[in-house]
């Protein structure tokens, strides 16, 4: 076993802030959606809007950081991505039960396995931006209608926003569970707190 420094300070800060924001958004969003009554619709509405602004700011900040530091290269893959994803998936379906080693070793140069790469890339480039865009269309609906958008779009926009939120809940559950699949049950979470992760020896 050895320790590697995987997550820079900004990345950890960004990760936990984004986690907090997404939890706050899911929580307040569910109340707005009428799934429970806790803080009241109006408070939930305000909370949702403030955190939505926060999410937008943090995602832009993250884009800036990834581009300027060149760390976006972590998300690039050489060779056949699909094969690699399947290898990783096969590990989770089979290998993990046989104590097989992880198919891709983590190190300072490559901290993400191919499945993580594609998932996080899709989340950051497609899922969250789409959710943010639909959320903002929802919020600025009157202004957009005044600019010529069809007023009938409110309903589909609201439904897509809700659907994406449910998918995000699914991601969050999966994501949290996956943290337990590291070298030890908590090594992944520790890494995201301290930056240092215990990984298998080469």
């Amino acid at each position, binding site marked *: 076993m050895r320790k590697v420094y995987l997550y820079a300070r900004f990345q950890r800060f960004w990760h936990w802030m984004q986690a907090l924001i997404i939890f706050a958004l899911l929580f307040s969003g569910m109340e*707005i*959606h*009428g799934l429970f*009554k806790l803080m*009241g*619709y*109006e408070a939930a*509405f305000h909370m949702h809007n403030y955190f939505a602004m926060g999410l937008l700011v943090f995602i832009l900040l993250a884009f800036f950081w990834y581009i300027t530091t060149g760390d976006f290269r972590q998300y690039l893959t050489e060779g056949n991505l699909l094969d690699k994803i399947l290898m990783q998936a096969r590990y*989770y379906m089979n290998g*993990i*039960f*046989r*104590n097989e080693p992880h198919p891709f070793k983590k190190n300072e140069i490559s901290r993400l396995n191919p499945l993580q790469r594609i998932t996080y890339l899709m989340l950051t480039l497609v899922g969250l931006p789409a959710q943010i865009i639909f959320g903002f269309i929802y919020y600025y*609906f*009157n202004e957009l209608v005044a600019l010529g958008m069809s*007023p*009938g779009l*409110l*309903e589909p926009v*609201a*439904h897509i926003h*809700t*659907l994406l*939120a*449910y*998918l995000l*809940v*699914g991601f969050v*559950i*999966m994501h949290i*569970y996956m943290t*337990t699949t590291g070298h030890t049950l908590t090594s992944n979470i520790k890494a995201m707190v301290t930056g240092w992760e215990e990984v298998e020896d080469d």
Partner: protein
Amino acid sequence: MHKLLMTRFIPVLLFLLITSTATAEVYHHPVDKITKSTADHTKFPQLKKNFKSGPEVTKACLECHTEASRQIHRTKHWTWEVPMKDGKMLGKQHVVNNFCISVEGNEPRCTSCHIGYGWKDKKFDFASQENVDCLACHDGTGTYQKLPAGAGHPAYQTTTQEKKTYKKVDLSHIAQHVQNPDRHNCGSCHFEGGGADAVKHGDLDNTLLKPDHSLDVHMASGKGELNMTCTDCHKTEGHQVPGSRYEPTAYDRHGFDYPLPDDFPTTCSSCHGNAPHSANKKLNDHIDKVACQTCHIPQIAKQRATKMWWDWSKAGKFDDKGKMIVKKDSTGHPTYLTKKGEFRWEKNMPPEYRWFNGQMNYTTFLTTFDDRGIVQINHPDGKAGDPQSRIWPFKVHRGKQPYDTQLKRFVKPKLYGPKGSGAYWSDFSWDKSITAGMENAGLKYSGKYDFIETEMYWPISHMVSPKEEAMGCVECHARGGRLESLGGFYLPGRDVNPFVEIIGFIVIAGTLLGVIGHSIKRYTTQKNMEQEDAG
């Protein structure tokens, strides 16, 4: 030093302090008779007479206000007639209602609220100038009162009507103390619509004479309150009072009326504009869909119960001794009267909500209707998605009233009149009463009647609550909220798409199950391997 402070500084400072506040105040002329009017009516010799009747007073008024009656003749307050664009003739003279049903045939009683003298039957002369009642609206003494069944006349001699004594009115004193109408003038009819206080509108009753802050934020009369009067919003010109319910303005897009007024000076936005919420701008996004009244009048009949149900079909029952029955609830409101039937009252309740584009559809005495369900005497036009329509609050008054089962039209029963005239309140025969009423009106009656359930919509605009008491979001943005039954549009917090919810459920439940299954398998295989290693 100390002495200097006490004898010089402090007195000077005190003097400056006192005088500075006094001089800092803006100078206003005192509000008295002179600021209010260029004419002191106690100085007119024409008014220092011993008037014998109302029309005599009017003649005196007309000596100076030469065109007043001709202005009045053009108003619906006088004609009780409102021609509509669709050709229907509305106005109090013509409309059906589900209170006392019809004016025609019951004139001397109903016309106690007419701004004229002597409308006791259909021969009334609407061109008469002296029959205009100036004092009903301009009495500044609070002593002018029309008799309940005097065809618009007050008591010229002390009179007893309907078990109440009405003192002789001092016409000369009243004529010398006239004023621009205040709440008490308008209220003497509009607060008592339907025959008594609070019966009809749900948002207009005598509590508005001296309302507190919570009852009506505009009209509240306490210290430091706005104390607005009816004509501050119903800004009258040439005796034309705007803000009629026959052609209401459901959405005033013009907004502020100053500096350029529009035709609708009575709307909320005439003063508040079309973007009045500054703290929470999202509220302004509601303005195209929700009338101000909807959120700002959360409850109606706030302090005095209004009538919600009037069932004429139950009328005409007598007790064992053959006497008329009077039943009252614990608050003293009648729940049964032999003359009128069964009533239900409600106080401080939420109104009902409908989409409304400003068009009211009326069922008149000439309209043939389908008698298989509830008949809407009037109903607001409008629908979700229509840019002209907004969600409005209404008091919906329901009841049962007689109709012609063959012609499928409403009938006009004669209610008020002496014994033998066919009047229901004297003879208690529906057949006679309807026959007499329809004959008087010159309308056909098949001779067969029954009772049908009706509903009537009264748009709500008064009893505006202070903003702290306006409705919160969750009143509507919730399942089972106030707008639960208003369909045709997506309301966040209330509406869901079943497919989205099912997919969401499958995704979340599926992930959870997958994760749980995976972890169990990891745990058990791990255990097995450990055992194998140990073995």
